């Protein structure tokens, strides 16, 4: 219970005092099965600050939601009294000449990309979950295939404004790409799943849309071959934008190499890459379903981030461990960056999921985590994180940004 009975003003009124629209929560608003008492939509950062300050005073556990496409990522919050919707925190300030954009967190990613494309630019982020908002993408911190060349999402963020649990808004970074003034707090919020604050606006560095795209694809007989090809392509100087591995539950493994660049040089580059991959074919553009998550909605998603020399081993182990646990795994991800996602069907129970992650963790370096548990596993005893190096420091950061533990409690690393 979070409310004391002494309040004289109705809680909803207090929450809405800063201008946020407040309504009662419904089962459709549930996060990880927790139905919030209220759902509030602040129209701007000031209203969001007032809302969070009120929630803080009242000790309401608050979960931030964009379009809700990734509400099931991370552990379900232990409590959820208030869902804060960012839908009205929109706005795009595009400085095309500077290749920079400042954008409200609630802005749908698709809207942003459409506006940027009109100027021949893009935010180099391949959304893994369709229909999401900018804030949601940043909070989940997922980076798609092109992270290989252009860096993960966090590398594209040059400034951020976020509201702390107590309602104080703080910015870091700025609107210029090159800037080392102050701590880069945007790094902390990226991938923090809303546990350190409400992201209200983000400034990104942009890239020009490439003139030409080619994809070189080949079926690999096994993951070791795919890894060998990856190493050869990376070492060839062809500078691929992405090297993606796709290994469904059953059936063949495919390696796809995406090249971006000037029209005049791209075919020669594609041919050079094709020569490194036996039986490959070249196609124009990026493939359909580019960067899509493996498996189906409702599957349990695992993330394995490993040294690139261990990608084959990780992929093979994910497959084998799933089989040993009586289930299956579909594996896809960046062989070039060493970040794989594996989908275990919704039918896989907690024991199976734990069995798979523990086995892979024991065998490879890096981090193997449960990124999105299947809905049925929301309250299961899942080993989501494994050992998190630096966890004590993370706790210390959380303690200072959200001392009462009100922002998506339990969703943070190690269950913070």
């Amino acid at each position, binding site marked *: 219970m979070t409310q004391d009975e002494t309040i004289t003003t109705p809680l909803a009124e207090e929450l809405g005092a800063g201008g946020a629209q407040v309504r009662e929560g419904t089962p459709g608003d549930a996060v990880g099965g927790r139905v919030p008492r209220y759902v509030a939509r602040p129209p701007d950062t000031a209203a969001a600050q007032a809302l969070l300050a009120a929630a803080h005073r009242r000790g309401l556990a608050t979960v931030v939601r964009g379009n809700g496409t990734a509400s099931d990522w991370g552990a379900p919050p232990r409590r959820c009294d208030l869902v804060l919707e960012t839908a009205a925190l929109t706005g795009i300030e595009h400085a095309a000449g500077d290749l920079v954009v400042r954008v409200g967190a609630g802005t749908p990613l698709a809207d942003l990309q459409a506006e940027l494309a009109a100027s021949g630019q893009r935010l180099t982020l391949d959304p893994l979950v369709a229909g999401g908002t900018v804030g949601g993408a940043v909070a989940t911190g997922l980076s798609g295939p092109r992270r290989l060349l252009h860096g993960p999402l966090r590398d594209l963020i040059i400034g951020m404004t976020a509201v702390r649990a107590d309602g104080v808004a703080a910015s870091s970074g700025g609107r210029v790409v090159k800037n080392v003034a*102050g701590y880069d*707090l945007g790094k*902390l919020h990226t991938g923090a799943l809303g546990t350190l604050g409400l992201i209200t606006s983000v400034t990104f560095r942009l890239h020009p849309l490439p003139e030409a795209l080619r994809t070189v694809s080949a079926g690999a007989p096994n993951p070791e071959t795919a890894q060998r090809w990856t190493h050869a392509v990376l070492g060839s100087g062809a500078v691929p934008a992405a090297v993606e591995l796709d290994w469904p539950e059953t059936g063949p493994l495919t390696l796809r190499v995406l090249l971006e660049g000037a029209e005049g040089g791209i075919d020669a*580059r594609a041919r050079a890459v094709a020569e490194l991959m036996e039986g490959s074919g070249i196609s124009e553009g990026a493939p359909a379903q580019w960067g899509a998550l493996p498996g189906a909605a409702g599957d349990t998603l695992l993330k394995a981030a490993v040294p690139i020399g261990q990608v084959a081993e990780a992929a093979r182990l994910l497959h084998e461990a799933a089989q040993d646990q009586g289930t299956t795994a579909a594996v896809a991800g960046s062989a070039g960056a060493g970040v794989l996602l594996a989908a275990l069907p919704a039918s896989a129970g907690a024991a199976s999921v734990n069995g798979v992650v523990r086995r892979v963790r024991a065998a490879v370096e890096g981090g193997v985590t449960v990124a999105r548990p299947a809905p049925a596993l929301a309250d299961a005893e899942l080993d989501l994180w494994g050992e998190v190096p630096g966890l004590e420091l993370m706790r210390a950061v959380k303690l200072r940004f959200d001392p009462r533990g009100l922002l998506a409690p339990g969703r943070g690393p190690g269950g913070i």
Partner: protein
Amino acid sequence: MFDEGEGEPRMPQPLTALIPRLREICGDDGVITDRTRRRTYESDGLTYHASTPGVVVLPTTTDQVAAVVRLCADAGVPFVPRGAGTGLSAGALPHSEGVLIVTSRMRRILEIDVANERAVVQPGVANLEVTRAAAPHGYYYAPDPSSQQVCSVGGNIAENSGGAHCLKYGFTVNHVLGLEIVTPQGEVVRLGGKAADAPGYDLLGAFVGSEGTLGIATEITVRLLRAPQKVRTLLAAFETMDAGGAAVSAIISAGVLPAAVEMMDALSIEAAEAAVACDYPPGAGAVLIVELDGPAADVDAQFERATRLCRESGAFEVRTADDAAERARIWKGRKSAFAAVGRISPAYIVQDGVVPRTALPDVLRRIAELSAASGIRVANVFHAGDGNLHPLVLFDDAEPGASERAAEVSGRILDLCIEHGGSITGEHGVGVDKACQMPEMFSPADLETMDLFRSAFDPAGIANPEKLLPTPRLCGERPGVRKGVHPLVAEGAAEQF
């Protein structure tokens, strides 16, 4: 016990008690107590600020660093990390009553891991050494600050160093995958490793650029990149800075992403000619250096375009370089420019500010106006691709009042950067030098939040104190700043779980 010179001030009291322990930890030759020797550490690359360290230690291992820091933490004694001492914001300014922890003896390259495209190094390794070690395998380490042959990788971590090629390749933070750090409590913690996306909060990302206020990096894992197939460089000479600036805009908006875009104005060209006879086209009011690298076919296609755009923007001469020797000739003037200014002026201030690239022409005009109004000459050398200005403010230190006027002009240039939505530092860092200007760029709430973050790592405030964030002692009182643990937690009113 230690050989203090006659009549020289003694070491501060709390420190003297630590000396025997420090000697046990670092060995006799790893602890410097003698004042004459300590004084050689009084400044980093920014000599304007100087302070003799209380004691200097030269550890060789992580365990030694951790033991020294634990000793400091237990005694409540501040410590300051220092690498090669090349920083330009006095970020390694010693604390007169603290321990200066110098990483210059931690300079082993621990591993060049080609299969995983990683190098693992100790913090005292010079930036360029990483590339030298990787080169035989066909790889290199991308961040290339202009002091790369001397600056240490540990220092690069502290400052999030960039370099001429960061326009395309990003900064140190984009190339560091793993750190072993010693926290201000003396704990050894690993953040990340050879794999990307370490689970949990991105403490690694926030640690890079924290200027030694969150602890000391004692082992660093960096990404190695494949050396580009081809590198081509052009030098274009323009009559005016505006024309040069227009060429930069044209190149960037054409979708060309050069590895580097550097510009020099007439005064800096004059200095470079005086120092190294770089033989740039006579009569140039601006020279632009554009370097493209990558797959050979791509570079060739983009190079033609960049050359054409330079000519269309009014370049009266374009030289191109296709091999290392020709490239070195083009870069010679640019690379020597800072030091070269010493040949045309007895003294100068190197400023570091950033503006959005599109604001460059306006800001350069305003700088010229400032210069004309004050009679203080300003030479401009800058990374045009990302709007990072390095105005060199020239003055004669023998002339009364000149240094004050130069400082005034230098400060006004930073104001211009802030007015145009830029930053007070693009690569030199805040350190002591710009700590008091942080409030011009950030609100009290921003700064307070940064301070909260700092206190998560360093609740006692002993890691490189008085750097990066403004303090009342440095900058005068400022309301609304609280330090340390959130008051609610301190009261016991807040719960964590």
